[in-house]
Each structure stands twice: as structure tokens, then as C-alpha cells.
């Protein structure tokens, strides 16, 4: 008995690979160009460029990757539209600088990289940008529901969560996502 069990045990021990299945979820832009050209104000775009040496240019400023999250959050949370305008952002806690983004819904982060950029650098930058969104969403979720957004989302995506809880969470998660929609555009890479 124990022998057979041992045999099976050793078999499963050898074949086991505990897989690392977690990562950064991203949506690629569809290949068809939109029907009409959308005009976006320059101040609503946050340009992030990575060159082949892994250096970072954010809004024409050379910065360290460790400062990127802070910069991106300041841009997204700015809420520059004046009170009374349709874009006015009541929950923003940023500088309300008129020369930066109008509202989180309008703010777009544009990410460009060189063909020789290392993948690891790219992932770090992606991670920081996703982190900036998550931090802001966490803040709003904490204010509205007293919970962290990432925890709510993880619970919502967990297949073991019951349907009633899921329906309730879905509404909340979507509400937070609307407050800070993830608008991260990736243009095609440049060769030079």
C-alpha cells in the first residue's frame, strides 16, 4: 500500500510544475482606425518615451522610472477643468493646474518605446503606469466603499465568489473604473 502510494507520490513530484500565471493585463488597440479623427488637446496627453538605453522621457522631461508613478498620478488626478464646466472633476485632489489634464476621463497616457528597449524595462514602466491607476482607484474605492479597489477586483474575478456578491461588486468595480478609466495608448514603435 505505502509502496504504491510512494510510487504515485514520486511520479507527481517529478511532473509537478507550479506555474506562474499572473501578469499585467492589457488591451491592444484595434487595427481599424476610428471612423473620425478625434481631436485631443495636447495638455490631456502624457507622453512617455523609453529609449533603447532604458532612459525615460515623460512630458519632455528626463526622469527616473522610480518617479514615474508619482508623475503619472499627478497628471491623472490633476482635474484642471474649472468648476462649472462639464469636465469638472469633483473628486480630484490634484494641483488643478490649467495647463495639465482636464479630468481623469480625458487624460490619456501615451507610451512609446524603441525597438531595442529591453522587455524588462518596458514591463517596469507598464507596471508603474498600471500602479498609478490602481493607486488612484484604491483611493476612491477607500473613500466610497472603505475597501481597496484591487481587493474588490480580485474578489470579483475570483471564480469562487458567489453570484450575488459578484453582481454587487460588479457595479462598484465599474463605478470606480469610470472615475479613473484606464486610457493607456501604445503607438507603434519607432526605429530610431
Amino acid at each position, binding site marked *: 500500500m505505502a509502496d504504491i502510494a510512494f510510487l504515485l507520490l514520486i511520479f507527481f513530484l517529478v511532473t509537478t510544475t507550479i506555474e506562474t500565471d499572473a501578469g499585467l493585463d492589457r*488591451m491592444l488597440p484595434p487595427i481599424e482606425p476610428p471612423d473620425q479623427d478625434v481631436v485631443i488637446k495636447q495638455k490631456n496627453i502624457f507622453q512617455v518615451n523609453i529609449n533603447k538605453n532604458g532612459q525615460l522621457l515623460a512630458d519632455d522631461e528626463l526622469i527616473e522610472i522610480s518617479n514615474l508613478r508619482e508623475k503619472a498620478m499627478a497628471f491623472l488626478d490633476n482635474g484642471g477643468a474649472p468648476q462649472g464646466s462639464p469636465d469638472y472633476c469633483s473628486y480630484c485632489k490634484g494641483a488643478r493646474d490649467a495647463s495639465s489634464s482636464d479630468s481623469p476621463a480625458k487624460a490619456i497616457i501615451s507610451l512609446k518605446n524603441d525597438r531595442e528597449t529591453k522587455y524588462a524595462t518596458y514591463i517596469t514602466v507598464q507596471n508603474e503606469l498600471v500602479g498609478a491607476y490602481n493607486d488612484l482607484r484604491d483611493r476612491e474605492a477607500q473613500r466610497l466603499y472603505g475597501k481597496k479597489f484591487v481587493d474588490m477586483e480580485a474578489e470579483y474575478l475570483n*471564480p469562487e465568489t458567489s453570484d450575488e456578491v459578484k453582481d454587487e461588486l460588479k457595479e462598484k468595480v465599474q463605478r470606480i473604473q469610470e472615475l479613473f478609466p484606464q486610457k493607456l495608448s501604445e503607438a507603434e514603435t519607432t526605429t530610431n
Partner: protein
Amino acid sequence: MSKFAKKKDGEVPAVSTASLPDIVFMLLFFFMTVTVMKDSTLKVENVLPNANEVKKLEKKDRVIYIYVGKPTREYEKVYGTEPQIQLNDKFAKPSEVGDYILMERAKKPQELQNVLTTALKVDKNASMGLISDIKQELRKVNALKVNYTTYEGDAFRNLQ
């Protein structure tokens, strides 16, 4: 002679092995439940980068994998040392990615075909040029949901 005579000193009783099968069975069941059979052998180096804002990839049946990395030593002679794409068990060119996705998609049940995710398992030393080509191919076949598979850890360790 008393019934409760003292045992002789210095004699340690043997450890009972009666619970051994139970322990072994417990371990067996643990490994049985966590085992995932490998479906393709890696022919490329695949050290993933770290990230901490990760989401878990649930539901394995909805994922298509693409591996990218430097060919391992035994394939180095044939395929060189530049990062290559591995689809299933063989090396492929970027232009073949689209067909592969369509083929894999056709294999899945109808109701899953619209919710598939493409997991990009890319070695951290690969360059973005190849990834951009893959991304372009994925856009062509409308496989827009991607997951850059990473290890969970501090993202800044990637830069060292």
C-alpha cells in the same frame, strides 16, 4: 514481583511507522491537486520579469501561450542567439503568430472564442522590437486581450 515494575533505563521505544501511509497519502493528494501537466517543452530561455500590479490568470482553457526568448544551448547552433518566438513545440517567425492564434482559437469551444487571452511569456532580456511585431500580428487577427506574464515581485529589480 510487582506488576508495575519499572522499565529498564536507556531503552527508547521504536518510532511507530503506522502513520506513514497516511502521511504519504496526504502528500500524494497535495501534489495530485497542484500538478499541472506541461503541454510544451520550453526551447527558449524564459526568465520572466517581475511586476507587482499583477492580476491572476484564471481559467487555463481560455489562454493561448506565446513564448519568447533566447534559444537554449542545444538549439543555439541552429537558431542562433537572438531571441526567438516559440509556438507550441516549435520555433516560429513573427508572421506565423497570426495563423497560430487563429488555429488555436478554432480549437476552442465556440463560447470561449471571444474571451481568449494571449499570454506573452517573454524572457526579460528580449528586446521590444520582436514584441512589437507580435503585438502587431495579434492586432491583425483581433486578439486584443494580452497578458504580459510576470513573476510577482518588485518591478525595480528588472532594471538591475
